[in-house]
């Protein structure tokens, strides 16, 4: 191997090392998450299928189509109870509207919402109740709390073991 070739191979090795180091430094790039400069209000809970059942006697036409031993004494339909979620921060409305249900059938209602809030002291008011007054027996939840949010904090509102809304432990 000539001296020139040896020199070139040495440069190649140095370049290869530099290339690998560059790759490693790109795989360890520090990135400051701008979201962490604010705080986050997070709502997360799930309530089992709230629905309203209404029953009536079957009509003659309905009974004719069914074998005698299978005729029901009443026909019932379940209707999903629409729910409304209201979130206030220091009296300002962050959200107020119906909660969408997952799927076409009557299923559990899942609430998962995230709001970016400024760090500092806040009053949080959350209301989660049926939209129709007739569904008086359905679950209704509400919460009112004062919180101090530092940058990067997550204020989590969730249900506890008794099914009541509250700030999660650790807050």
């Amino acid at each position, binding site marked *: 191997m000539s001296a020139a070739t040896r020199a*070139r191979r040495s440069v190649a090795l140095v370049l290869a090392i530099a290339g690998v180091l560059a790759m490693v430094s790109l795989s360890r790039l520090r990135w400051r998450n701008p*979201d*962490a400069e604010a705080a986050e209000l997070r709502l997360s809970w799930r309530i089992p299928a709230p629905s309203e059942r209404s029953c009536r006697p079957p009509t003659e036409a309905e009974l004719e189509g069914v074998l005698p031993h299978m005729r029901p004494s009443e026909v019932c339909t379940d209707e999903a109870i629409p729910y409304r979620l209201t979130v206030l921060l220091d009296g300002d409305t962050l959200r107020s509207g119906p909660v969408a249900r997952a799927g076409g059938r009557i*299923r559990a209602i899942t609430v998962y919402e995230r709001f970016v809030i400024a760090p500092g002291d806040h009053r949080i008011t959350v209301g989660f109740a049926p939209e129709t007054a007739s569904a008086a027996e359905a679950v209704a939840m509400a919460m009112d709390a004062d919180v101090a949010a530092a940058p990067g904090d997550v204020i989590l509102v969730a249900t506890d073991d008794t099914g009541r809304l509250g700030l999660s432990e650790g807050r």
Partner: protein
Amino acid sequence: MLKRLLGPVLKRTDGWVDRLFGSKWNPLYQSGALVVLCLAVMLVTGLYLIFFYRIGAPYESIVRIEGQPWGGRWIRALHRYAADGAVVAAVVHALRMFCQGRSWGPRALAWISGVFLVFLLYVCGLTGYVMVWDTHGQLLATEGARLLDALPLFSEPISRTFAGADPIPSAFFFMNLFLHIAVPVGIVIFLWLHVSRVARPVLLPPRPLLWTTVGLLTGVALVVPAALGPGADLLRLPAEVTLDVFYTFWLPWTRSAAPGVVWLAAGVASAVAVAVPLLTRPQADRRPAPSFASTRLCTGCEQCYTDCPYDAIRMVDREGGREGKVALVNPAACVSCGICAGSCAPMGVGPPGRTGRDQLSRVKEFVQRQPDAGEDIVLVGCGRSAAAAWAGDHGRRFLVSCAGNLHTSVVEYLVRSGARGVLIVACPSRDCWGREGPKWLVERLFHEREAELKARVDRRRVRVAHASSFDRWSLGEAMDEFATELARLDAPVGDDAIEVETECDLAESSTPQDSPLPRPGHTSGP
């Protein structure tokens, strides 16, 4: 457009890297094999790491691994840097194939399976980062869940898993681990598909490059441990995160974008990547015609069948009650590399206009056109090599579409016509457009491979050099060295009447009557 921009950059880079590393060890030419090497390193190191990983306490188990200075720490770093290396090599490999026009026609399967391989590599990498369950993993998991929730896949938002109200279920880490281990099986399947249309796929780089790469990655893994952020805390927003640009470059952008926009961008990018074979396919009249085999000239020796780098030739029974086999080209698998033309002693196989017979006719004209230049060196070069742009002091130039395309009769004709020497310029062997051209050329010229250079030809007057299109230095050095050696030989004596054995009449048409696109292909005179 992209090809026009990147093509010249790529050629120049090849030339410089050839100059420094030598074309044999140029890592750019081995990019595909380097991906496989990195995958192999990941597999071996992953097998070690899996023994220490606990799905019940993921972060704690990684901290424990990091606490093993002579084992776990550098093995984890090697695992991670190999994953980065795989992405870098895969991107280089894809860019090379794209710029060299090796992404359409029979190569479409390799391209599309390559796109899926990159996708699987990403799935594997991202699940690996989530496994660690530090702030980086937390950010990836929450962002991934946010994006997935925008798709109509789940009845309830999976983001709730990371709400922080309850501990993350072990099932999540189990599924993540399962994916991280199962996806490599998919990678193996797609890798098989990726190389299924090529003969003798080269899956690993040559040993010096292999061990240098492993050594460099190991060295850097020993010196620079892999990043490990603070443990995930779902009730804190990660403030400073160590991103891996190769896998999570998208994270800062998607955080502030609507999921629909992210999916749209990903969908468009994926569709474009998969559609590259269609987008880069030349118009029908510009596509090189596939090879054909003359049933009359074919002796059934099977050499073209053996040499074809794309398994595009089969040996089938002769028709008409005659015994023996005859070569049959599958046009759907043929990329028109023309290597079969160089491998066929009776010159009965090859792309239209580029068979041995066509080359011989051209070289006759070439010699007749320059009767006074007999004692010069003839530069016979691949049109993609440095010979295409050669403007040296001495040397006449005779270009062919690929050095492996070159029939040895052409070399014989040139030497016997009185050329002082014949310098054949091939592309670096791992960068041949037809994959194996330089390898078979050297075998035919100097190692008696079928369609060999006849013994009567003075081999001292024949030399092979490897130089990529921009590597004028290597070609210049090879030319000077060859000229010096030729100067020590007696003056060449040309034959008055050269009879090159073609076994059949030269007037035999090299273009099949039924060939859909009879055209000369990529050949040109001096």
